[in-house]
């Protein structure tokens, strides 16, 4: 097990220092959650002393330029394939810290097979899954995560579950897999939740360093532009409506004895999990 490097003690108290791993100012819309998640990642990786050994696996969505904002070695993935790309990186360089940064269209629609199987294999990378319930980049179309009744440019009368199906709770689904060692859903709705989001990201990278299995943090985020709201309204909607539909919390942290209450796996299954 590799221990995370300790946080450097600083003299006095710095309150708004720009994390070193944040390079250029982001180009996200005002009130967009992506910028907050970038900052949290930069802080966590810097505090853990991991910047120089981390490889970012990008995805396709509004965050496609994440490599322009985070000063990390980075590789682009085709839309949805980040979990496969990260598998390739991490298998060849298990000594590096590898994470994907994916939107909900990327991870929960076109990339469903890749994320499920990476989790099932217990791949030792971390997934940062930014769920804003919409396809931000392509103009606010319905995503698998879009709430029932929610209006988008491709569900103009509101998502009709009878024909367009129900929101897909990917993180809950992945939590059932023995290869998943850490799974949490967090939110950026207010400073309190942002603090918890940071803790979850830190814990996910710790789990990766422990080399035990797959780790995923779903971050409930905003898309004021796609939602047709002001930044303030978007944050309110996130807190009052989205967080109602998608409860936050730690679903799995096997190292700390948190796992979904499920029937125990059978013998065949156990022999597999012992390998982790």
């Amino acid at each position, binding site marked *: 097990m590799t221990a995370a490097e300790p946080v450097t003690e600083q003299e006095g108290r710095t309150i708004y220092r720009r994390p070193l791993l944040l390079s250029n100012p982001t180009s996200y819309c005002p009130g967009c959650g992506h910028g907050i998640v970038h900052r949290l990642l930069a802080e966590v990786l810097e505090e853990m002393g991991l910047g120089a050994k981390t490889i970012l696996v990008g995805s396709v969505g509004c965050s496609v330029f994440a490599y322009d904002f985070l000063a990390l070695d980075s*590789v682009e993935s085709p839309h949805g394939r980040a979990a496969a790309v990260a598998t390739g990186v991490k298998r060849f360089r298990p000594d590096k810290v590898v994470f994907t940064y994916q939107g909900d269209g990327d991870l929960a629609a076109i990339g469903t097979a890749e994320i499920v199987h990476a989790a099932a294999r217990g791949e030792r990378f971390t997934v940062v899954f930014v769920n804003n319930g919409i396809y931000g980049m392509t103009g606010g179309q319905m995503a698998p995560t879009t709430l029932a009744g929610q209006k988008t440019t491709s569900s103009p009368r509101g998502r009709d579950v009878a024909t367009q199906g129900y929101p897909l709770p990917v993180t809950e689904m992945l939590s059932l897999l023995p290869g998943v060692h850490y799974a949490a859903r967090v939110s950026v709705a207010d400073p309190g939740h942002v603090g918890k989001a940071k803790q979850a990201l830190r814990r996910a990278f710790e789990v990766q360093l422990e080399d035990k299995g797959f780790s995923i943090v779903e971050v409930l985020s905003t898309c004021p532009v796609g939602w047709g709201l002001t930044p303030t309204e978007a944050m309110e909607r996130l807190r009052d409506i989205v967080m109602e539909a998608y409860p936050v919390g730690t679903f799995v942290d096997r190292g700390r004895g948190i796992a979904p209450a499920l029937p125990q796996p059978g013998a065949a299954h156990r022999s597999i999990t012992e390998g982790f």
Partner: protein
Amino acid sequence: MTVVDRPASARPHSAAASRAHGGDAEDAPQRVLMKGNEAIAEAAVAAGCDAYFGYPITPQAELLEWMARRMPEEGRVFVQAESELAAINMALGASAAGARVLVSSSSPGISLMAEGMSYMAGSRLPVVLVNVMRGGPGLGSIGAAQGDYLQATKGHGHGDYRVPVLGPSSISEAIDLVREAFILAERYRTPVMILADGILGQAMEPVAPTFKTLAKRQPDWILDGADHREPRVLKSLHLRPEDLEAHDIELHEVYQQIAANEIRWAGERLEDADVLLVAYGTAARVARTAVERLRDEGVRAGLFRPITLWPFPAAALREAATGARVVMAVEMSAGQMVEDVRLALEGAAPVFHHGRMGGMVPSPDGVVDTMRRVLASSEEAAR
């Protein structure tokens, strides 16, 4: 002759002793009997392949099975992916991290890998892909075919890129070309495809086990964490058209270098040939026998065998066809490579085609028959 060890689950090879029919000299390297798929896999292992990703599909599955056993033995990466889509993207990631990577599949799986090939070409990431072609379109058949020639040489993923394609016509040649493919992939930072077919993959041939190693490179573009250096980004996205055009021009300069330096082909009985068969892969072996039969009938036939299918050896073919009465492509397709033959000859000689499809293999007699008819009608026309 010894038999190279196979995965425990596989049935053992029957050890046909070539000495019995007087093949091997005492001091010749001892030859082994190997399936094409296995020989290709072992050649990659010997060439220092760091990572293999694949998905089972006939007639390529033995390649994956061989790697499933050999790669862990060597402490290297093997992942059976959930799809070919995932396999090629795992390859993308491993290649970005500096691995020497092999992926393999057969026709339907190569269609799924097309997406990743386009991204890897755009991101300048080396990888070697093996397509053990089967009959198509669609699920087609599991018989050997060459219906993916156009896909391999002009198609697969979207966008303005090219991929060098090597067409072995024997298992020994496939072994050599695997190593060549890694060299090309790394020299030019590009995907390279080995275009084999179901017969090459499935047949067993005695081969000299000269599996050569290949020195590791130290490229300055791989991702290993931005430690005391500027971060590196491997990507195909260039949003401003000006930038993308500049990037595409760079790519095409690389392709021009490949076309200038890397063309490979072989010729047989070309010196006095005035009737030329053009064929690659398994079809070339049929064509070779047809050449002999035509010679027996007094027809001065020769075989031109492209080895690089892209870049196509157009100039060499034009030269070989100088003064030819008739040129005929022999393919296991409805006529795909024949388009390149026509382009190469620019009307310098009449070009015909003989092909079977769907997993059917042309017979030498079929080729000779078609050639007889072609010669008869051209003599008729000349009268």
